[in-house]
């Protein structure tokens, strides 16, 4: 009557669980959407006026960066979920189910990314419309790019959740990580206006890479370098591996009946 499910099916079921919980808490979606709209139509509008002397369209630059930074913030939530699951003992249940630890990390990271994608797809379409970009294929390609970024950010978030045991320390670290990944990047301001000491870090930030690739698709006059795609892919691979490794370490080192 029961059969061993395939790996793909398990990944789908793990994603489905994250989606089910998303549907049950629409206030998060509403909150983030309102925040995004305020950022776009108030903050970006004002800064665009202030920065008009710089000679470039800051609103177009920022609108793409706002979507990328929003999905980055949302992807971090999966680590918070996992930390809470660990505290509540739910992780023991999930890991007793018929799939391996690595598959679990992949499923959860993808779940976090899919959840993020559902949040930001309407935002991405709105931004494409505001920027005057109307290619369905281009928008789909952009969504794919930010999905890859969100997968890596989810992996990073899971790694932090597995690495840190103290709840307060975890909250601080997640907030700092989110701040660093978004702010030390070219998501919401151009690299040249950043402090010199941060520029090398921001150049190789996956958030910069994703922002630049989407801008290259949406906005005329923007281009992305091939290394940025490599940065993005490496980021995902590294944090899948680390998330899985630290999950194992946490289980083997930190729990006692």
């Amino acid at each position, binding site marked *: 009557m029961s059969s061993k499910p395939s790996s793909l099916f398990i990944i789908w079921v793990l994603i489905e669980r994250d989606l089910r919980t998303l549907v049950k808490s629409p206030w998060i979606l509403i909150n983030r959407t309102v925040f995004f709209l305020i950022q776009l139509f108030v903050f970006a509008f004002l800064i665009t006026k202030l920065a008009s002397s710089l000679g470039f369209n800051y609103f177009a630059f920022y609108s793409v960066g706002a979507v990328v930074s929003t999905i980055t913030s949302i992807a971090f939530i999966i680590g918070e979920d996992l930390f809470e699951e660990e505290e509540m003992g739910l992780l023991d249940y999930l890991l007793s189910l018929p799939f391996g630890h690595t598959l679990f990390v992949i499923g959860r990271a993808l779940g976090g990314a899919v959840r993020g994608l559902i949040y930001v797809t309407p935002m991405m379409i709105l931004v494409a419309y505001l920027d005057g970009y109307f290619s369905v294929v281009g928008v789909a390609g952009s969504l794919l790019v930010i999905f890859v970024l969100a997968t890596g950010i989810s992996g990073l978030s899971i790694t932090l959740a597995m690495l840190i045991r103290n709840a307060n320390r975890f909250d601080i670290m997640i907030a700092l990580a989110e701040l660093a990944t978004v702010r030390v990047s070219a998501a919401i301001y151009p690299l040249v206006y950043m402090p010199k000491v941060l520029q090398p870090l921001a150049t190789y930030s996956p958030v910069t890479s994703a922002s630049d690739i989407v801008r290259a698709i949406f906005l005329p006059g923007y281009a992305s370098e091939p290394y940025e795609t490599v940065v993005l892919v490496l980021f995902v691979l590294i944090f899948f591996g680390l998330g899985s490794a630290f999950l194992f370490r946490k289980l083997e080192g930190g729990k*006692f009946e």
Partner: protein
Amino acid sequence: MAMIQFKDVAKSFKDVYAVKGVTCDIEDQEIFGLLGPNGAGKTTLIMTMATVYNPTRGEVVVDGHSASAEPDKVKSLIGISFQDPKYDRILSAREILQWHGKVTGVEKGVREKRIDDVLTKFGLAGEAKKRTWMLSGGTKKKIENAKVFVQRPKIAVFDEPTAYLDVPSRLMVWDMIDELRDGGTTVVLATNMMDEADRMSDRVGIMSRGEMVQVGEPARLKGTLKGRDVIEMKLEAPFPELVGEVKHVEEVKEAHFEGDLLKIALSNGRELLPHMINLVTAKGGKVQSVNLKEPSLEDVFLHYTGTTLT
């Protein structure tokens, strides 16, 4: 062949050993009661069997598969009902059971039918769509148990399955566990409730401080407590001369009067009861009532662990 074999299984977290070299077999389709106070190592042993933890030493073999070498194979055989309900409380009972059934590979048609059956049996059909955080502790526990009844795994682990439940619900859970076993499932029942272990278990294993200190059928384990049976005979009047007569019986360890009550501590009390009554009567004692007190599983536990269940 045994369904589950623990071969010198030890598990440490850093330098602290939660399980210290457990060797024990659990037979196919038996209900195995796992007893032990909090911190005895029961949960760690279960989680090692479920491959969540790797043993520091030794091996767990489940249905012929090594838990370390073939964890996915082993996990697919096991379903666990945890002591504290473990599921997403933002979801409803039906959603939780659907997801659990799906992830454990129960086919859709079968899954839905089982969910309907279990929810009806537990009287939860009307609450199946409510978010579970809104439900009572007993209802949450029923949903935790229901996961395993929907899954019907080859090996079912129940950790305190009747905690928080009222008497009718307890009896229903016991019947459902019996049915599960009759359907071919091996059951590991971790419990602190001695009446539950006594009623349900074919055999029990007693754990203390990370070790399996005794394994056997409840009746046999009780029988190992020689001299712990007590016969209490209420006589018409005290008859001190009887004490000496009674003490001549080899199995009798001690005898004395408390008022008109003759108390005899002995082994094999059940078998010797008619003989003792005849002996007292033959010597002139007029017996008004008789009571036999045999060791309980709790006495067995106390004897082997030197501690009470808390």
